[in-house]
């Protein structure tokens, strides 16, 4: 009898594991992770000994490969005097925004928030990515994030909870992006 119970438990665990793997490997999950990885990679460039910035362009290009030419992006304000989000129309304007991040922020560490079913399970578990088919074709994904970054100029570090909404066209390119970051707080040592 104990052997049977043990076998059933083992079987259940295996099923749970298989489902978990499927969720983690879903195309939507991969799209979310790809976007986050390319964003976080924007600070992986170097200075030459004569002070030249080397390797920025390929990183910006890598991020921009994800976008359609007519992309519409709503991003958080990045001007001190700006209140509210900024709407960027077209790939060229999005590129300026991406390039600005690459050149002005370091130690980028955006993560997809994890969650379990329980009421306090916000720090472990699944990286949930919500998805939908768009009526006009293409797919949409949404996921919660925590954004962490430092300013290149003074190394001040900031953190903000947020969310990302991305709509892809049938060609797999991003047509719309909405990045929300709220309650941006400076991280200071205790």
């Amino acid at each position, binding site marked *: 009898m104990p052997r049977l119970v043990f076998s059933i438990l083992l079987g259940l665990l295996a099923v749970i594991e298989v489902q978990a793997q499927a969720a983690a490997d879903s195309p939507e999950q991969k799209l979310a992770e790809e976007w986050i990885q390319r964003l976080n990679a924007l600070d992986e460039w170097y200075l*030459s000994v004569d002070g030249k910035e080397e390797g920025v362009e390929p990183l910006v290009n890598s991020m921009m490969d994800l976008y359609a030419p007519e992309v519409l992006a709503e991003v958080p304000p990045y001007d001190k005097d700006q209140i509210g989000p900024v709407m960027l129309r077209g790939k060229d304007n999005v590129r300026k925004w991406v390039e600005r991040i690459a*050149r002005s922020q*370091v130690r980028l560490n955006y993560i997809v928030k994890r969650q379990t079913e329980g009421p306090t399970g916000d720090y472990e578990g699944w990286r949930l990515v919500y998805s939908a088919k768009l009526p006009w074709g293409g797919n949409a994904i949404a996921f919660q994030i925590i954004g962490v970054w430092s300013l290149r*100029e*003074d190394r001040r570090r900031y953190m903000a909870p947020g969310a990302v909404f991305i709509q892809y066209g049938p060609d797999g390119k991003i047509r719309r992006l909405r990045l929300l970051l709220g309650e941006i707080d400076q991280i200071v040592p205790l």
Partner: protein
Amino acid sequence: MKDVGETWASLKKNLDSNAGAAAAADAAKLQSLFAETEAFWAPLNTFDAVNFAKRVQEGAGVIGAAAKSNDMKAALTSYAATQKNCGNCHLAHREDTGKGGFLIRP
């Protein structure tokens, strides 16, 4: 920057052996080297690195003055305090390639 390690080691050796004049010369050389370091970072809008370089120049000035007056205890105290800037700057801006070299992070 490549001369810094050698000069820094020489400074410590001279301070430990009470060679005040030689230590003061090393400190002066460090001031000059870190003026170059400051000039490297200044146009790159990386103020933490600029400040680390400035603090080392100030520290080297204090070490040099103490060494000239043969106050080795004060010089060694300043040496230890100044050295902290090296570690802090390397932590933020130097990346080990694992192949015997380093990369400069923005």
